[in-house]
């Protein structure tokens, strides 16, 4: 048996370099892999080509959209005017907050299970082993951040010069890198990832506040969209110093932290690849919850199974600050869009209402989403499946009711008919609740269906039929509200039609057996049975005794 030097004298070990460990692992893997160099180059070529086409298309759409906007305000304002560039600056701030929050939730430095088991137990400098993992996320941020900021500023600014575009692109790239690198430095310093993510959430929450403040004060916040050389140099310095600190301190990240981050990243990547937004939400949220609370709630008001279910959903939402921020911030978006001079069009307002409402709606359905995966409370309580669904409408209904009142109320006020618009808001609320439940209880995507050509490549149609569950109810059920926004007034007929839409949405959302009309697309016409993973899929139904069926 081989003997090795004694460690008692604390002599440096004759261990290989981290780079050679990585190289050995990669070489061994390549020997067993069946990917040729040609295939690899082909993939790289395709990726670059797709990215270039995507960027070009986005720039074209942004500039065309900007040119199609009215040059003067569509309607006279009373002091509430913001230039388009201020909106762009606020969106950049929101992107920065999102990037920081996301980086903290993903680590940003982490390793997979195999690397943790077989690499991190070696007595080599971990810095060399972790370096590629540490720079993966900043590189991704640079690749995404630069083009996104450029497209955004191109949409907001007319007559942008080439040098301004370059400085914007560089600012986006370096800024994105700096944000992720600083999150990494915080990780090496042992800062709780929840704190870092909370800072990002606060930045996100600041966006509507700043926007409304700018609108009321008629201030232009569009500073830094075309960063000067001095600003760029400052950003480079921040990113470089942060990068060096991160690299030097990689050694100080405990293996449990690295493994935790790697686990989140793996789960999130799997969710993205499988287009499962619920799984992505769980991946990014699960490890952010405080494991210990100062005291437990006594639940004195819980006197029935129904109240227990409602309380569970409400507490789950309240204890997730990100979801609270998401609902509140989304409520300010339509008002913000209405305050931008060139965006104050019915189309822009209706789009803002739908998009912001959908974002808020997703944040209110955390309880149903988790119950779909693990119906723990559902199984404990003696409530039927249909009643469970109906009860689950309550929390999204209450929250989206407040949200809708906050959004449509000011519109009604500015149109001189607050009562009508508030009535419309009340009638529209159940649509959001029904869509939230339908979205939360949707089955897993069916990947076995026929392929359809899309700009993103070929997608199985079964995936699309599942992904539209939720948005379909919103689009169809909100037609009266959209018409009201379009014509700028509310009629009794529209309110009645909206109430009927609400009833249908509630029926669709609380449906647990058989099929609704909207589910027909997923039904197999030959057998009458549902496609695997489609409507009526037993995936979650098998897990849930009380909420089975679709």
């Amino acid at each position: 048996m081989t003997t090795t030097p004694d460690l008692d004298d604390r002599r440096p070990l004759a261990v290989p370099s981290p780079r050679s460990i990585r190289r050995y692992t990669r070489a061994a893997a390549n020997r067993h892999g069946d990917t040729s160099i040609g295939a690899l180059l082909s993939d790289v070529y395709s990726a670059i080509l797709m990215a270039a086409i995507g960027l070009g298309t986005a720039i074209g759409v942004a500039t065309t959209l900007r040119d199609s906007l009215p040059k003067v305000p569509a309607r006279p304002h009373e002091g509430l005017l913001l230039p388009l560039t201020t909106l762009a600056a606020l969106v950049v701030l929101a992107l920065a907050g999102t990037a920081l929050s996301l980086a903290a939730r993903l680590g940003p430095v982490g390793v997979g299970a195999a690397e943790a088991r077989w690499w991190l137990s070696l007595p080599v400098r971990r810095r060399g082993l972790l370096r590629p993992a540490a720079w993966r996320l900043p590189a991704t941020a640079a690749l995404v951040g630069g083009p996104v900021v450029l497209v955004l500023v191109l949409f907001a600014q007319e007559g942008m010069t080439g040098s301004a575009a370059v400085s914007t692109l560089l600012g986006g790239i370096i800024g994105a890198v700096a944000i992720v690198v600083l999150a990494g430095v915080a990780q090496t310093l042992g800062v709780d990832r929840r704190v870092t993510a909370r800072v990002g959430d606060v930045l996100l929450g600041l966006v509507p506040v700043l926007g409304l403040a700018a609108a009321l004060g008629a201030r232009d916040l569009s500073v830094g969209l075309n960063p000067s050389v001095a600003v760029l140099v400052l950003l480079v310095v921040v990113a470089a110093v942060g990068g060096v600190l991160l690299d030097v301190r990689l050694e100080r990240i405990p293996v449990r932290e690295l493994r935790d981050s790697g686990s989140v990243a793996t789960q999130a990547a799997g969710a993205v690849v499988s287009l499962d937004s619920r799984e992505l939400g769980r991946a990014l949220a699960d490890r952010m919850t405080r494991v210990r609370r100062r005291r437990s709630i006594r639940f004195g008001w819980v006197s029935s199974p129904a109240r227990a279910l409602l309380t569970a959903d409400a507490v789950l939402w309240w204890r997730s600050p990100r979801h609270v921020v998401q609902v509140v911030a989304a409520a300010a978006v339509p008002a913000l869009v209405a305050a931008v001079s060139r965006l104050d069009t019915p189309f822009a307002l209706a789009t803002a209402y739908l998009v912001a409402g959908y974002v808020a709606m997703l944040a209110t359905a955390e309880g149903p989403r988790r119950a779909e995966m693990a119906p723990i409370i559902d199984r404990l309580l003696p409530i039927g499946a249909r009643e469970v669904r109906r009860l689950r409408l309550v929390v999204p209904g209450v929250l989206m009711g407040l949200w809708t009142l906050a959004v449509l109320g000011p519109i009604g006020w500015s149109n001189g008919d607050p009562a009508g618009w508030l009535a419309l808001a009340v009638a529209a609320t159940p649509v959001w609740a029904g869509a939230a439940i339908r979205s939360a209880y949707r089955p897993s995507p069916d990947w076995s269906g026929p392929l359809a050509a899309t700009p993103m490549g070929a997608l199985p149609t079964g995936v699309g039929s599942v992904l539209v569950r939720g948005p379909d109810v919103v689009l169809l059920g909100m037609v009266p509200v959209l018409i009201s926004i379009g014509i700028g007034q509310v009629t009794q007929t529209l309110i009645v039609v909206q109430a009927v839409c609400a009833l249908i949405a509630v029926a669709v959302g609380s449906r647990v057996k058989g099929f609704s009309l909207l589910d027909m697309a997923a039904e197999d016409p030959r057998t009458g049975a549902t496609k695997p993973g489609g409507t009526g899929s037993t995936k979650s139904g098998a897990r849930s005794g009380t909420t089975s069926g679709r």
Partner: protein
Amino acid sequence: MPSDVVIRARSLSVGYGGEPVCAPVTFTVRAGEALALVGANGSGKSTILRAILGLLEPSGGELSVLGRPVDEREAVFRAEVSSVLDDDAYFPALTVAEHLLLTARGHGVDDAAGLAEELLAEFGLSSHANVLPVSLSSGQRRRLLLAAGFARPRRLLVLDEPEQRLDQQMRSALAERLRAERAAGGSVLLATHDPVLLEAVASRAVLVGDEQSVLMSPADAARAIGAETLGDDGDAARTETADGAPATGGAASGGTTRVKGASTPASKAAPQGGSGKRRRRP
């Protein structure tokens, strides 16, 4: 002259989110000794092992490994402490042999290929040397993990229920391996539910429980496991301290603990082995 104390734990408390999972434990492991942690499922054995390996921050007490505070971020710690937990993770494109070679070469073993070959034969994996771990059975993957634990120099070997998924023949071979480890001056800390392995390998045992964690002889611990009397509160072994009071807060290695009526000085119950210069076992 360096101390031969490999692990020193005093009132070591472990848990999650500030909640302890078991009573504090106190024990010392010296060179050439093997200490077994026994207890019911969920009693906290694996959590103690994770704290000793630096994978979990202790919530209280004192802990040192090889004379230093535990810090798995230090390369020298990883060079001296080998561990096999229940982390069934492998590089998907590396063969069984390559996993062992990676470990051996990464630890600076001169004849990594020779050592890997020996371990493959010893753990019954020779015929699977060139296959990917995904094609192995659950027991074979466990053997690979154990082989990797021996494929590198070490002064302390930490094993979490190493008998899991092993057939009887392999359990016997493992017991023999661990006895040899002790004889050569190496130290072993293991959590186990196997009374045979416990008696064959351990020099002392700690019964981990909710209310008390008690140091005892391997024979008594094995009897406790065999009789399935490991209650949740850890009192099924009817253990008490020398003064007749119920043993609480763990038993110091230097103290005296009476188990089932037998009074055994703990220091004597832990036979000293591995005198002289410690040699890292490949």
